[in-house]
């Protein structure tokens, strides 16, 4: 087996879908370098080309141009070698709903070459590890959304793939099921697997991924760690609340002086915030002592990096949920995003 430092290596990958009238440039020249043992996230809005890219890497689609290698095997020339070492979980549960959970796994185990008792034993272990031992004898169509996603993940792990492709693994899941999927991904990677996951949730990429490729309209528009991407838009911001609204103006003055930047009052009569300018990260630590010296009580203080929402907006000119990038809808969409993030924070 050819050795390679990269688990996945794509160069100039292109896939265009032609219909009678138009050509959809689903993937329009993508380069990817996924290091072994990493969680790599392909982040983009609906229709950005994420699924098409993953389907090419998993040998389900033939690229129109460009090359891709998985663990050194070419996805076109050496497709069967790729298939032996990758697992795939699609956007939709790709298990047979009419069969039971156990039957689904046993079928796959046999197709991978496990025989008789060994196949069954392995599948029972997997069901147990995924908390599905009681549901193993039931038809998958009776499963809840979270259980389906887990049986689907278990199905991808029957062969212990070295590279696992997860196409939007948490889309449509409730926060609890989503956390379970995240935990599974972390265990797999801690165990040496490489995971390439696509997502339209910035939070998910932020939580899980070692590196992120942001794609939009079939092209990679940014690549790096979550921190890299955030840095590209600024150093973050401090937000604080004062106990006494009468002293807010004074606090704004102090914060502005310490950070060397303009602090602004928030809509909340007790709140204020300020961007941390380049080069004054060290001043942040002096904020609280300075306020305390002035006798201003600060019950809430937070220092946040810019969210990936902001990153996406800066890079693409539109927010992730706004696939067409219509500038006019930017305001309302951003507001919607904030609400969604708030909801999640509450549930979590």
């Amino acid at each position, binding site marked *: 087996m050819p050795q390679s430092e990269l688990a996945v290596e794509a160069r100039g990958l292109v896939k265009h879908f032609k219909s009678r009238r138009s050509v959809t440039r689903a993937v329009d020249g993508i380069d990817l370098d996924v290091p072994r043992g990493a969680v790599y996230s392909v982040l983009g809005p609906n229709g950005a080309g994420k699924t098409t890219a993953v389907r090419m890497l998993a040998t389900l689609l033939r690229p129109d141009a460009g090359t891709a290698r998985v663990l050194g095997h070419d996805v076109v020339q050496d497709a069967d070698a790729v298939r032996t070492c990758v697992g795939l979980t699609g956007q939709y549960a790709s298990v047979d709903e*009419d069969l039971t959970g156990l039957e689904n796994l046993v079928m796959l185990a046999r197709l991978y070459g496990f025989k008789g008792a060994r196949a069954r034993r392995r599948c029972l272990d997997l069901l147990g590890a995924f908390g599905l031992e009681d549901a193993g004898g039931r038809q998958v169509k009776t499963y809840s959304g979270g259980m389906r996603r887990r049986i689907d993940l278990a199905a991808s792990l029957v062969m212990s793939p070295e590279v696992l492709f997860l196409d939007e693994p948490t889309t449509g899941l409730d926060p609890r099921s989503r956390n379970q999927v995240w935990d599974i991904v972390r265990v797999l990677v801690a165990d040496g697997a490489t995971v390439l996951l696509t997502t339209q949730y910035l939070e998910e990429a932020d939580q899980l991924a070692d590196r992120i490729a942001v794609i939009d309209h079939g092209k990679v528009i940014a690549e790096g760690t979550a921190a890299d991407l955030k840095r590209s838009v600024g150093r973050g911001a401090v937000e604080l609340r004062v106990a006494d609204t009468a002293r807010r103006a004074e606090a704004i003055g102090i914060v502005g002086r310490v950070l060397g930047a303009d602090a602004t009052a928030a809509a909340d009569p007790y709140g204020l915030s300020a961007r941390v300018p380049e080069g004054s990260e060290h001043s942040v630590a002096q904020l609280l002592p300075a306020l305390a010296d002035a006798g201003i009580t600060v019950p809430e203080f937070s220092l946040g990096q810019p969210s990936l929402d902001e990153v996406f907006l800066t890079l693409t000119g539109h927010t992730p949920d706004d696939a067409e990038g219509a500038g006019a809808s930017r305001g309302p969409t951003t507001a919607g995003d904030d609400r969604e993030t708030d909801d999640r924070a509450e549930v979590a």
Partner: protein
Amino acid sequence: MTASDQTDQADRTARTARADAPAPEGTATPDDHALRDAIALDRRPDRPSAVSSTLTFAWRALLKIKHVPEQLFDVTVTPVIFTLMFTYLFGGALAGSTEAYLQYLLPGILVQTVLFTTVYTGYTMNTDITKGVFDRFRSLPIWRPAPIVGALLGDTVRYTIASVVTIALGLLLGFRPDGGVVGVVLAVLLLLVFAFALSWIFTILGLVLRSPNAVMGVSMMVLMPLTFASNIFVDPTTMPDVLQGFVDVNPVSHLTTAARGLMSGTAGVDDVTWALVAAVVLTAVLAPITMRLYRNRS
């Protein structure tokens, strides 16, 4: 050992710290160690043979029949309705007596029943595609035609059930095949071979069309002329010339003549050969097209 345990412990602590919501009481959060043990693999098994993969898919088709026995409803009820309707509604008018007509009709109804059942092949395949199961199969390192050939093999069970129901009803109503058990069994075997070959039409439709219902609709449009414009129900000598021309080249006519011959013990080699050749040609032409569509599906 101790060192690795410590590392594990550290990993777990790190993960717990990172996870933003501890799972509530009673939820099945996968246990890290159970998961590690479950996916640990000391030795990769050898890849299964083409035959073994195909049989696994046939097994899947049988499991589906076991879990969704309703799908056999059509297969068992349709032949009963058709046999009763044609025998008692038209039999007297067409052949002078219902008994005489049954002798003529039953092998034909058997052919029609089995051919109608082949539609399900395309239907289930299209369902697999729309649900995403086929993506999983296509991502496996197996003999490429295995999912399709396996499904076709599994379907022969359905054809057999349909045949048994039809023949049993016929015997009950007074059908007496002169060819005996051997003749009847040979006729059914010939039908199974032909049905397997004809199924490739429906695998193609299953791969090309967008929804299972579209597959059903188009398949019926293919099957209606094939079965009705044949010698299944009536002797074609009373038909207009143009129609007779079609009936004569229709492989279903030859299949029906062969099945009648086998069941009555008067089979001509011609018709049996004709039906078998048609089956081989159908498979040789349609199977590669199916596989090409299957490989290049986007």
